[in-house]
């Protein structure tokens, strides 16, 4: 009897292991093909845009033989498939070439600017989710009420007002007039020599250094652009939360929860939102990715030394390596976030878990 039970258990464990293996394998295949697609697109863009990377380096007054020599040095005489192979090989080793503008390897530049963007987007997403989810829940629970209308209008404004205009307005009001926040940039110049970045995420670095004066200053700098990005993602998150919540609140298990005598608070936050959280995770992850790539305008307005500003500057100076490198990084983050939200999805929804 017990040996039979053991056998069934062993068989079940076996089946589980092979199912997990299969899932991991399909994950790897999906990520690899998506990444290859991303590289192909960026490579293609790099070759078809009317910017000559050779001229960008040697300048437009270089003699013909110099141009020709540089072209061969850079491998542009090779057939496209070989170029693509070398490109992929370089990228996989973290080599995006050298930036014409800064003369640094593109990877080193990105390592410097990307944490700034990521920090901004992270704080922005936290703000967006912290306010967007409760507002969406409120709108769904009080559907059709004044509160619902107000949340709708807040969302509509966040969604339709251009973020650069809102940014300038915010700077004018909160920095120039009221003086509540710090101005453009990440940190005040007085900290330039005393503050040493460790991770590149300044808020975290200030905590690690126990430099509370710097922390306060960094916070005063980040709060305005992050609130702005947060408002933008709040608009989206609150709308999606509302519609997911309405869907959940109309389910039969909510009637059952009421029949059990649970309080409305428990029903809304413990049951309905817990179920709505499953699709919401994907929405928040994608909105986070959207902030990472879409902060170009915000970074320009707030002189935020992040990836958006870096790409914009590179683009204006025909620095193709830097632009493509930045694009690949953003693409990679997109893929990673998708993967992450997929994993989180499994964690939140037992129906998608492998048993």
């Amino acid at each position, binding site marked *: 009897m017990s040996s039979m039970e053991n056998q069934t258990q062993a068989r079940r464990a076996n089946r589980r292991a092979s199912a997990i293996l299969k899932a991991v394998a399909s994950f790897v295949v999906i990520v690899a093909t998506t990444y290859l697609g991303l590289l192909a697109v960026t490579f293609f863009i790099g070759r078809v845009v009317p910017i000559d990377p050779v001229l960008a380096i040697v300048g437009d007054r270089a003699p013909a033989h110099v141009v020709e020599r540089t072209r061969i040095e850079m491998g542009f005489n090779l057939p496209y498939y070989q170029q693509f192979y070398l490109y992929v090989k370089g990228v996989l080793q973290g080599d995006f070439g050298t930036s014409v503008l800064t003369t640094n390897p593109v990877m080193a530049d990105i390592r410097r600017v990307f944490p700034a963007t990521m920090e901004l987007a992270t704080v922005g997403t936290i703000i967006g989710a912290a306010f967007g989810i409760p507002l969406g829940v409120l709108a769904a629970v009080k559907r059709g009420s004044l509160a619902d209308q107000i949340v709708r209008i807040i969302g509509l404004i966040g969604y339709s007002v251009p973020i650069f205009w809102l940014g300038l307005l915010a700077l004018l009001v909160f920095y120039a007039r009221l003086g509540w926040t710090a101005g453009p940039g990440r940190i005040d110049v007085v900290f330039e020599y005393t503050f040493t970045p460790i991770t590149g995420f300044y808020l975290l670095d200030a905590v690690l250094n126990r430099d509370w004066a710097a922390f306060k200053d960094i916070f005063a700098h980040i709060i305005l652009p992050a609130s702005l990005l947060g408002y933008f993602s709040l608009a989206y998150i609150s709308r999606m939360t509302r519609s997911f919540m309405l869907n959940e609140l109309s*389910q*039969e*298990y909510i*009637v*059952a*929860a*009421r*029949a*059990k*005598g*649970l*309080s409305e608070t*428990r029903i809304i936050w413990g*049951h309905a939102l*817990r*179920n709505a959280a*499953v699709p919401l995770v994907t929405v928040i992850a994608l909105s986070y990715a959207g902030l990472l790539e879409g902060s170009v305008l915000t970074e320009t307005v707030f002189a935020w030394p992040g990836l958006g500003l870096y790409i914009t500057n590179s683009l204006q100076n025909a620095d193709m390596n830097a632009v493509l490198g930045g694009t690949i990084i953003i693409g990679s983050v997109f893929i990673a976030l998708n993967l992450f939200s997929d994993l989180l999805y499994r964690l*939140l*929804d*037992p*129906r998608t878990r492998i*048993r």
Partner: protein
Amino acid sequence: MSTLLHVEDLRVSFPTRTGVVEAVRGVSFALGQERLGIVGESGSGKSQTGRAIMGLTPQQAEIKAKRLEFSGIDLLKASQAERRALRGSRIAMILQDPKYSLDPVMTIGRQIVETLRTHEKVGKSEARQRALDMLAAVQIRDPKRVYDLYPHEVSGGMGQRAMIAMMLIAGPELLIADEPTSALDVTVQLDILRILDRLVIDRGMGLVFISHDLRLVSTFCDRVIVMYAGKIVEELKASELSQAKHPYTQGLLNCMPKIGESRHPLPVLDRQPEWLL
């Protein structure tokens, strides 16, 4: 036999864009520790009657009654909080399909414990033990395993047992079962009914059994109310069903096929417009 539930002239109406729709139009009955069946077709108001007793009618609906009383408590005058305290602890309801009426992201055990701990102050380990006992009481063979399963991992019959366990754990005196077996396989239906029957008798509960299945209701209940268009058209003892006087009830009875009988043409329910009045 003391009377548990008094319903007198219960009316449930919904305001809609085209006017007020009356789902329940003057239903009256009294219930003791007995099994009362409410039968009717879709839209006859049988479910809305049950939900009005539970206090689970949608907000926009209007409920009127001369009397709606549960063991001396006037349900119409009771506050929201008072009614909520009754739900689950003294009046409970079993819904139709366990696939939809159990929270998909919460384990079965936690959902049962949740009912208990809402109404009684019990510690975690005691609550768990009582939930396991309750699962055993609904004849689940391996309560410890089922306790940690999610609703999608169990069959319909098992899910409905879990539903019954979840609703009965706080020991209600009145149970409203709204089509509790309609979503289940015929073979499982009888198991569930047997479990329900046993628990109702053992615990001395009153039962309102809502169904569209006259045959099922007549074998399972003591008394049957037949509803049509929001009104009671006939009330009779289950054993005297064959002596039904109302033509609608007779029509329902005639729809049931008998073995060895060939009927051409098949009888069709006739609905007289004057019954709507």
